[in-house]
């Protein structure tokens, strides 16, 4: 990225008691970009967002917005719109009053406020709801009000902290698209926090994946999914088979625990004899009757559009494959003898998962 609209420069946050919430975060965000902070709870993604919003102060490093340091700027002077997980609507105000709030604290003329509120209501398709109170709205409608309120004063940057967490799946997917459209329409820069990898893949321009306070990988959704740099990313984004093993030669031949030898792509420099974790997406597993490691179908799970097949190899590994519903050969039957293989390009030899022993895998 050439343009640094938002920049985290070596940002570290340590809480009382020495807990490292965020370690040495370096991240640039371009103007107009939609960046998602993805990670499990406690990974530091929300703390990073709160530092950007001004509700937490970095212990070290600094954050820049549009070239200006935010270090000494209180949240109410940052001009950043924010949507909270709980919506944080003001229950004693009407919807219109809620949306007008950022403009009234800025002492804008009345006519301008009314205009802006009407436009914001139109934007989120709540035109007729201005006179209601938040409690009279559904969860999805409340979410739209929170969105409108964060956008109405035309902030250059909008932060969203798990804004769809409380909605049911269908509504959530609908809102994902809608937020994406609004982002596209307004061209605003958007930083979005979620622990839902599907949401991250659907909406973002780029995804930043956090774990234990450290940034694991930043990249386009396709990059992150297809070319994870760590076994954690491989596991957290999408689904993957992960096998512990030892690298046997420079071409990437890995001897998996249990004696199964398979090819893989070496991602990071790795010494011969080093421990590694081989990660393979289930849709890249090849099943056949004559090629690969021998095993038997242990379980078939029907998912409508696809079928999940669990194969127990003779080496003792459980391998999980996804087959498109229309493309399931007749010989994939419960208990049938079957062989498993993959292309070296589809298997990534990543860092060893220390806590992910073969014994566990074999259970």
């Amino acid at each position: 990225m050439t343009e640094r609209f938002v920049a985290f420069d070596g940002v570290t946050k340590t809480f009382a008691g020495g807990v490292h919430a965020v370690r040495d975060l370096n991240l640039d965000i371009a103007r107009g970009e939609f960046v998602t902070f993805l990670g499990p709870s406690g990974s530091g993604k929300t703390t990073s967002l709160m530092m950007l919003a001004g509700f937490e102060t970095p212990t070290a490093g600094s954050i820049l917005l549009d070239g200006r340091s935010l270090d000494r700027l209180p949240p109410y002077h940052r001009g950043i719109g924010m949507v909270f997980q709980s919506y944080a609507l003001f229950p004693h105000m009407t919807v219109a009053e809620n949306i007008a709030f950022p403009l009234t604290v800025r002492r804008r003329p009345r006519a301008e406020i009314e205009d802006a509120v009407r436009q914001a209501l139109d934007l989120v398709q709540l035109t007729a709801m201005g006179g209601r109170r938040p409690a009279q709205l559904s969860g999805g409608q409340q979410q739209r009000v929170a969105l409108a309120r964060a956008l109405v004063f035309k902030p250059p940057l909008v932060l969203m902290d798990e804004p769809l967490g409380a909605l049911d799946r269908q509504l959530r997917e609908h809102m994902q698209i809608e937020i994406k459209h609004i982002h596209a329409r307004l061209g605003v820069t958007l930083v979005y926090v979620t622990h839902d990898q599907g949401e991250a893949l659907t909406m973002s321009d780029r995804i930043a994946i956090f774990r234990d306070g450290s940034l694991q990988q930043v990249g386009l959704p396709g990059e992150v999914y297809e070319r994870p740099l760590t076994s954690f990313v491989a596991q957290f984004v999408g689904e993957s088979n992960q096998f512990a093993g030892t690298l046997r030669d420079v071409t990437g031949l890995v001897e998996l625990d249990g004696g199964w030898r398979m090819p893989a792509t070496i991602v990071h420099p790795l010494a011969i004899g080093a421990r590694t974790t081989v990660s393979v997406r289930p849709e890249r597993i090849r099943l056949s009757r004559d090629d690969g490691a021998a095993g038997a179908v242990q379980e078939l799970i029907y998912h409508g559009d696809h079928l999940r097949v669990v194969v127990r190899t003779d080496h003792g590994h459980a391998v999980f494959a996804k087959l498109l519903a229309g493309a399931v050969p007749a010989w994939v039957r419960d208990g049938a003898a079957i062989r498993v293989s993959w292309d070296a390009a589809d298997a990534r030899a990543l860092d060893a998962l220390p806590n992910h022993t073969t014994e566990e895998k074999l259970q």
Partner: protein
Amino acid sequence: MRQPMSRFLRPRFSAWLLVLPLFLFSAATFVVPIVMMLARSVQDPELSRAFPQTAAALALWDGRDLPPASSIDTFIAELRDARGTEGLSFAANRLNSEISGFRSMLLRTARSLPRDRQDDPVAALARIDARWGERSTWAAMRRASGPFTDGFLLAALDRQRNDDGAVVRVAEERAVFVTVLLRTLWISTLVTVFCLLLGYPVAYLLASMPGRIANPLLVLVLIPFWTSVLVRTTAWVVLLQRDGMVNGLLQRLGLIEQPLTLIYNRTGVLIAMVHVLLPLMVLPLYSVMKGIGRAPMLAAMSLGARPFEAFLRVYLPQSVAGIGAGCLLVFISALGYYVTPELAGGGGDQMISYFIAFYTNRTTNWGLAGALSLILLVVTGLLYVAYARLSRGPRAPA
């Protein structure tokens, strides 16, 4: 036929049975005594019970001069029969609250009644006590002849009926209840305001702390709540007295030269009552604030409001329900306070409950005690209705 019927009814019936003990308990210990006490404020049975015919005769008397001799004869006969009975004592007590001294006059008269019928009954009574020859004595008896009276309610408002039956103010030096009622309302208001000023920041602090810190602190707030009012008040007396710790500290710090009078006056009453009632303010505020959480303040600030404006426009309005509940709890509790003003106050700091207790226990003038209670209850009820109106008003859908 039987089976579905009983299956349909049984759960409801046994549910009723489950609440029945509580219902009976609160009816027997709470509702019934209160209703009986309030009913006393208009009942006036003593005289008509002790002297039924006299009471009936006096009701017919036009109130001018003296009652006819026949009525007085009836009275003498009934008084003679009442000698040594409890009814006489109750009637004497009742009349004593009309005219001080009536009790001993009536009992002495009963003891000294002439044996046989007199030609001039008034003169015979007046020989025992000259006051029997006065119209006001008989007017007092007529006022007390029952079975119902407005006398107690009037007395509770510093009013009385004069000998002609007109409502007039009582003598200036006896007029005390209106002052006391206003004083009760005023002290309660001050206590409520101070509790709010002190309790709001405390509750805010508690609500914004994480649970592991807030919970022990909340216990500290509650400890005084669990301590007896008497103990807490006595502790304040010790702290606030002339050579108590507070004065000692202020003097050592050089803030004052002469010890301040902090106890046995209004200051002492306010300090002790605010302390005693503070938990009643903090707890509802805390629970409402806990429900508000941090998010609205953060949201308001992220939208550009400075902390003070965010507090005024966003936090304060959301905590109004807690303020209302806390103020109502403190105010209504304060209205009934008795022990604290008694121990920490001076001559001019007694509240209405002091008089209710005085008339209930000391002089057993339960009519006046009931009337004062009724007035207190009505004032409390009106305030509650006003609160309910106010707190509902702005929430009504536009």
